[in-house]
């Protein structure tokens, strides 16, 4: 997958993948499908509706109902994409996702697959306050039976989404982040897939491993720049998917550097950064030269005021602080 110089925004690359997949597989239907919510990026998705009008279903405001319909339709042979909108609205859909979609394959002893994709644009978006800032991927990781993809860049979303939509036969949560839509990056022209469960070393480095998920990847790269200026050579690793998790690649990096900071934009307790930290401690304890650190949201609801919202956001600056502490 060579980018050949072309740059796209995350939203454009995502729309490109969606278009190709809709064209490739008749079984794909989209329930909802704003995808980019109130962001300007919504304009990249609108043309899809015009191009595939019969593949988009406009639902009432009924997240539980449409999540269940998506799961049931997937069981019966469709490949639905259900856009649940803002991450906080996913709680409405929990019974259908957690009690139904997640259990059907296992409980049926492998007889009923549920190839549904749930899309959420989540995370601290800027003035979302308590009910428009949730990123529920830690909750979904705590739910056996769900795949979780957290693309971090334009080329990533294009390849991961294609694999999710055309290959995967399992319920998948696509945890998108409001602040990624406008990120730019090189994107290969043709179709390509990034299979789930293959972590990516985004930036090689020798001194400390930064394991960063989704929106934390660009922040980790920014942090690595700052750290480089201080003589710390950080390796940035992006798991890409939490389920399945490519633990080997993460551990190989930590074995090499001997130091680790995990970073994710979920609340600290029982969050994703903590789980990654625990996995590393269990597995490569002896290779660690310093106590591990994590960067996460402190355990508070997201406040509205700009000053306070920024304060609780796991920014590049927080990553720099943590990496410095680990390398001290």
């Amino acid at each position, binding site marked *: 997958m060579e980018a050949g110089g072309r740059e796209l925004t995350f939203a454009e690359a995502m729309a490109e993948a969606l278009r190709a997949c809709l064209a490739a597989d008749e079984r794909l239907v989209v329930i909802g499908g704003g995808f980019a919510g109130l962001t300007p990026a919504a304009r990249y998705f609108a043309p899809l509706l015009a191009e595939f009008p019969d593949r988009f279903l406009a639902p009432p405001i009924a997240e539980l109902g449409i999540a*269940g319909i998506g799961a049931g339709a997937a069981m019966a042979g469709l490949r639905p994409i259900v856009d649940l909108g803002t991450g906080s609205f996913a709680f409405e859909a929990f019974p*259908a996702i957690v009690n139904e979609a997640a*259990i059907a394959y296992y409980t049926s002893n492998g007889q009923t697959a549920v190839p549904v994709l749930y899309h959420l644009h989540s995370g601290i978006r800027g003035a979302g306050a308590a009910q428009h800032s949730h990123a529920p991927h830690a909750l979904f990781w705590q739910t056996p039976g769900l795949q979780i993809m957290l693309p971090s860049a334009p080329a990533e979303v294009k390849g991961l989404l294609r694999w999710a939509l055309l290959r995967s036969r399992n319920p998948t949560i696509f945890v998108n982040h409001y602040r990624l839509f406008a990120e730019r990056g090189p994107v290969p022209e043709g179709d390509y897939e990034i299979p789930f469960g293959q972590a990516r070393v985004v930036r090689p480095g020798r001194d400390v491993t930064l394991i960063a998920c989704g929106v934390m990847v660009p922040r980790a790269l920014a942090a690595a720049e700052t750290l480089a200026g201080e003589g710390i050579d950080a390796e940035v690793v992006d798991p890409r998917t939490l389920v399945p998790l490519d633990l080997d690649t993460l551990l190989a990096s930590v074995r090499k550097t001997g130091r680790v900071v995990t970073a994710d934009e979920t609340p600290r307790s029982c969050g994703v950064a903590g789980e990654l930290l625990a996995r590393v401690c269990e597995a490569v304890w002896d290779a660690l030269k310093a106590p591990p650190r994590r960067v996460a949201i402190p355990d508070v609801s997201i406040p509205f005021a700009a000053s306070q919202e920024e304060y609780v956001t796991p920014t590049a600056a927080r990553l720099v602080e943590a990496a410095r502490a680990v390398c001290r």
Partner: protein
Amino acid sequence: MAEALGADVLRDLLAQMLLIRRFEERLIHLREDAGLLRGHYHVYIGQEATAVAVCRRLVPADYLFTTHRNHGHLLARGVDPAALLAEILGRATGCNGGRGGTLHPVAPALGVLHTSAIVGGALPLAAGAALAARRRGTDTVAVVFFGDGALEEGAAYEALNLAALWRLPLLLVCENNSVPPALRRAGQYPSSTHAARELADVPRALQIPAVVVDGADPRAVDAAVAPLLARARAGEGPGFVEARNSRWPGSYPLWPTLVGADFELAWAWEPERVPAALAEWSASSDPILLLARDLLAAGAATRAELLALDGAARAAIAAAERAARAAPEPPAEQALAGVFASPE
């Protein structure tokens, strides 16, 4: 309009109802065998007429979704009683290999893709299957059975609205098993936990055609269901049936309990032998006895013929029991396998 059911059909339905009855009765007995039947379970005794009448109208491609009280629906759909019983006993030969138990049996070849024991949970799923069917351009329908309790859940309401808006080929069968005999046919039965005068008012508010029938009478169920299914198959949208049943006294306690004695078909003509605690319900509400008496009264069957149907049902269940008891448990370590399907 649907034609009235003939005597042949009714005898066949009675045979199926007896199979369900004897299955559930055995289950209650198996519970006496310490450790054999683990966990809570629900029996379909008293509602058999509804399942067999509805399922008779289905074709193989149709989807069927059900609830915690699913055994009767699966048997009426043609699931092998041995596979169902083995599942309920957690055996490797069960329809889910023992992973699902009584609450989650599936039979994908018969359109039973996933069984949810979450009250109201099945309605959105069934609407989804109906959506899949419609998009394939077939006349396949999805039928979903659920209890009166399901209409207390928001999930059911959202699914009704979606099914109505999208004109999904969905038959909603609400089995209201809380109805006194005298009100089984007539309207306006208030439930203790639902504010509607009658439950069918809820789908009606969403412009879904809704019919209230005596769920103990397979002819009434058939007459209600046939036109709604025809509409759904023709792409005209969902239909709703409130099938009213009078709860079997054995399903009032937290755990199903045989009231007095094992069921006897001969109670149809020897009512004085019915145990006192069951007498009223048997006389007014037992769908098997009601149908047996009708067939006898109409000269459509002899007592001996009916007893033969029952004998066959008992033999089938006995064979299922032997097979299920003999079956092994699934290997423990297999618990960690099969969480995800391999990619296409």
